[in-house]
């Protein structure tokens, strides 16, 4: 058993920032991460970090753009916190030595990005995330924060009150990948989940293999609702064979999209008459898929992204990394030919429901980063808005967990504010299958003091590991790929009712299959088979909640497109989708989006680019 004031799960941008903040506020912090910090997927971010740094710009404009981009599903207090604090956080990174790209006068460069009214995206070449991740890890080394790397967090140790709002989180249970030891990490002040994205729910994704949404699923089973899960951003420019992302920076610098007929389709087919290539991601993704579906795709699969006209010098200066990516992963030379691109899963706008301080409905449990939903991105995230989210909300969660007073939060969590139940009948049963098997890891133990709660959670986790290792059964890989396939087939950019129902019943089947998974590698050392098997369970829970939300929301908002109703319905749907686990019987409900901010009230407008 390990004991700290604050335990941060995950060591990407959000986790590292949270740990630094908590330590600054005087707490004894530990980071527990299944990957060594520098291996986190924040390192893959290319494009940049939005921050209103210049006099001609203002955080209010940034907030307005963000809200508009979110299709009015962001919560104003969170959006404003993001935009207000991003500049100071970016400068802090700069003071920590982050090698930003520079202007001639030595100031940080900024470039235009989709959906922004001002070129406010700061960047470090085409490797912004890498530089940000490493800069923050350097600070963690400097400050001597304890890091338990290659420890897979299996579960949260949460008390077992029937109403999740009464529960308290006392720590986490983790599995040491190197040795196979299962151990408890007691967190006296709080646990901060910063486990990143969930791209592995789909099979064509820009996300890492490790992005399996563990934190979201863990919190979900412990009683925290998942918010707005149906909003998945599909990035319009990913390489067809691997899903590797070609940064929006290419379009920001002036890259052009062509279809098989050589048409600049965003203009010529009227998808985005004003902003063209710089229109919001969802617009561009749908435009591309429409082109492909209507037979104007190349090899019926992708379109072309051309940056040759920018000239070698500019490309080398600002987009050199893109050249390597296209070369190494697709065999295309961006200086000589257009690059093939197609939409791929990129970002989950939804996640663990939190308020603007990172607090969840369960006491002592926080979330920040991509796994959390505060919500700043609403129905659609603007490019360059996730990295500032990591540093702003990572910091806030860290401070709050360490006991710093941040004032009263305006966003209600759980069912503490206005809420309404969903009246949607799913054709398929959802939720836990076949009683509490080894896979059932509903958060909660009978006892209420920290030691006992943690003790029971550790026992349960050990049992689960033993069972998975001892019994014989199916390999998780087939289940995982079945999930990924059905999600990509039916819950992709274009969604319609029969497909979504189909996905839900496929997921049911996968869930049933999962009840007899087993791990065939008996080893206690670096058993990745075991880790992947546990991750697959998380993928299942997330996929299901995501599909439920997508089925119920009959409108077209942001990244969520529904065939049945291809327009935004502000009358009925200016509200967040929430799914609660309820001990195995998922419940769908809603709460209103908060559009009244400090700067203004954000009146829904037509989103046209």
């Amino acid at each position, binding site marked *: 058993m390990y004991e700290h004031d604050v335990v941060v799960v995950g060591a990407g941008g959000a986790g590292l920032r949270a740990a630094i903040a908590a330590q600054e506020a005087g707490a004894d912090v530990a980071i527990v991460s299944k990957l060594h910090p520098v291996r986190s*997927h924040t*390192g*893959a971010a290319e494009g940049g970090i939005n921050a209103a740094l210049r006099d001609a710009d203002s955080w209010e404009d940034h907030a307005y753009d963000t809200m508009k981009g979110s299709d009015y599903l962001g919560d104003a207090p969170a959006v404003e916190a993001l935009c207000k604090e991003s500049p100071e956080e970016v400068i802090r990174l700069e003071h920590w030595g982050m090698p930003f790209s520079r202007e001639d006068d030595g100031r940080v460069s900024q470039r235009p990005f989709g959906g922004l009214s001002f070129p406010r995206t700061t960047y470090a070449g085409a*490797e912004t995330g890498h530089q940000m991740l490493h800069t923050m890890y350097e600070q963690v080394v400097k400050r001597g924060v304890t890091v338990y790397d290659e420890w897979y967090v299996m579960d949260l140790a949460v008390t077992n009150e029937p109403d999740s709002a009464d529960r308290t989180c006392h720590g986490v249970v983790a599995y040491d990948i190197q040795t196979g030891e299962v151990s408890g990490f007691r967190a006296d002040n709080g646990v901060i989940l910063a486990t990143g994205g969930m791209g592995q729910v789909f099979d064509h994704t820009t996300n*890492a293999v490790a992005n399996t949404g563990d934190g979201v699923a863990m919190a979900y089973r412990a009683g925290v609702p998942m918010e707005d899960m149906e909003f998945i951003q599909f990035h319009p420019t990913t390489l067809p064979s691997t899903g590797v992302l070609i940064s929006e920076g290419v379009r920001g610098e002036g890259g052009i999209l062509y279809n098989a007929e050589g048409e600049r389709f965003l203009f010529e087919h009227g998808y985005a008459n004003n902003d063209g290539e710089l229109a919001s991601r969802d617009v561009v993704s749908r435009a591309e898929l429409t082109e492909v579906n209507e037979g104007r795709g190349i090899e019926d699969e992708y379109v072309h992204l051309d940056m040759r006209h920018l000239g070698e010098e500019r490309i080398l200066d600002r987009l050199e990394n893109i050249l390597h990516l296209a070369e190494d992963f697709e065999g295309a030379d961006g200086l000589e030919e257009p690059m093939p691109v197609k939409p791929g899963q990129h970002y989950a706008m939804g996640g663990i429901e939190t308020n603007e301080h990172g607090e969840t409905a369960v006491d002592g449990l926080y979330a920040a980063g991509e796994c959390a939903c505060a919500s700043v991105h609403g129905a659609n995230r603007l490019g360059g808005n996730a990295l500032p989210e990591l540093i702003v909300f990572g910091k806030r969660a860290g401070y709050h967990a360490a006991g710093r007073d941040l004032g009263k939060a305006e966003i209600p969590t759980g069912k503490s504010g206005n809420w309404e139940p969903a009246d949607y009948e799913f054709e398929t049963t959802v939720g836990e299958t076949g009683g509490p098997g080894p896979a059932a890891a509903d958060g909660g133990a009978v006892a209420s003091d920290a030691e006992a709660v943690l003790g029971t959670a550790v026992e349960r986790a050990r049992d689960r590991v033993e069972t998975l290792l001892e019994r014989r059964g199916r390999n998780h890989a087939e289940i995982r790929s079945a999930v990924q396939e059905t999600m990509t087939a039916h819950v992709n950019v274009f969604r319609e009712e029969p497909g979504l129902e189909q996905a839900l019943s496929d997921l049911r089947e996968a869930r049933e299959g999962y009840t007899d998974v087993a791990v*065939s590698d008996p*080893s206690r050392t670096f058993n990745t088979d075991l880790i992947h098997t546990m991750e697959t369970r998380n993928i299942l829970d997330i996929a299901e909640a995501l599909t439920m939300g997508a089925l119920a929301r009959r409108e077209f908002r942001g990244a969520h497109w529904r065939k049945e109703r291809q327009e935004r319905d502000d009358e009925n749907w200016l509200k967040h989708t929430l799914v609660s686990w309820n001990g195995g019987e998922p419940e769908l409900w809603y709460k209103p989006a908060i559009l009244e901010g400090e700067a203004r009230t954000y009146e829904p407008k037509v989103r046209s680019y």
Partner: protein
Amino acid sequence: MSTQIPKETEETEGSKADAEAGVPSKGDVRRAEKRRRAAEKREERRAEEAERAAAAEHTIELRVFRYDPDVEEKQEPRFDTYHVPFEKGMTVLDTLIYARDTYDSSLTFRHSCRQAVCGSDAMFVNGGQKLACKTQIVDLEEPIRIEPLPHADVRKDLVVDMEHFYDQMEAVEPYFQTDELPEGELEEQRQSRENREKVKMSTRCIWCGACMSSCNVAAGDNEYLGPAAINKAYRFAMDEREGEDVKQKRLEIIEQEHGVWRCQTQFSCTEVCPKDIPLTEHIQELKREAVKSNLKFW
């Protein structure tokens, strides 16, 4: 290996661009050369791919190192052979994933991003240190032999203990230190473009450990900081924002007994680095910096 000299025109173009950005042209010449080489390779690869596609149902033979101290039948290191169907654009990592998901779920290797940024999957492929996700199958000879990184303790299969590497990386005070922070909280600490350009390559390290594994000096002298850590020190020592005093301290760190002087300019680190960091060049520059700063007061 290509020994051709880059074309004249390319070179002058490159250096013109440099003059404007105020960048030393050496790196650009090298990159131009690299690109040209890559283009050649791509041509070869295309031809190769066409050939292999023609020879329908081509499968790749992999020989993968297996070892697990925990499992009786794997305690004695051995090689397992797998046959993996070839697909266009396939990387070494793809073949390993295929083999694991299809034949043996206990096959163990680190990987995450699949795009050469997380640095998890450096391994020894056909006798060279490679990043598996960035190594195209068509560029390799068959059978493909995959082993864990040399000169590191093997934990299991292709997984090696990285602790020592991390220790070395952290031994050079790998964090920005400056006492010249600007006044205002929103005030940037300016840096010239030239200076950013100078440290740019050194900031690209993804901690994969390939360089350390390829260096024979590091293999012999366990305490040698190694190319990656020295490069990390370079990244800060050359950053103008750190100031003179800190630079002196940095030089003292890299000058220690197991620091830069151990490097014997083997160049293998530079050859294997998946991020094309000119490691030897950086190490040599630090040696000269160290000598210079010492001679000043000698």
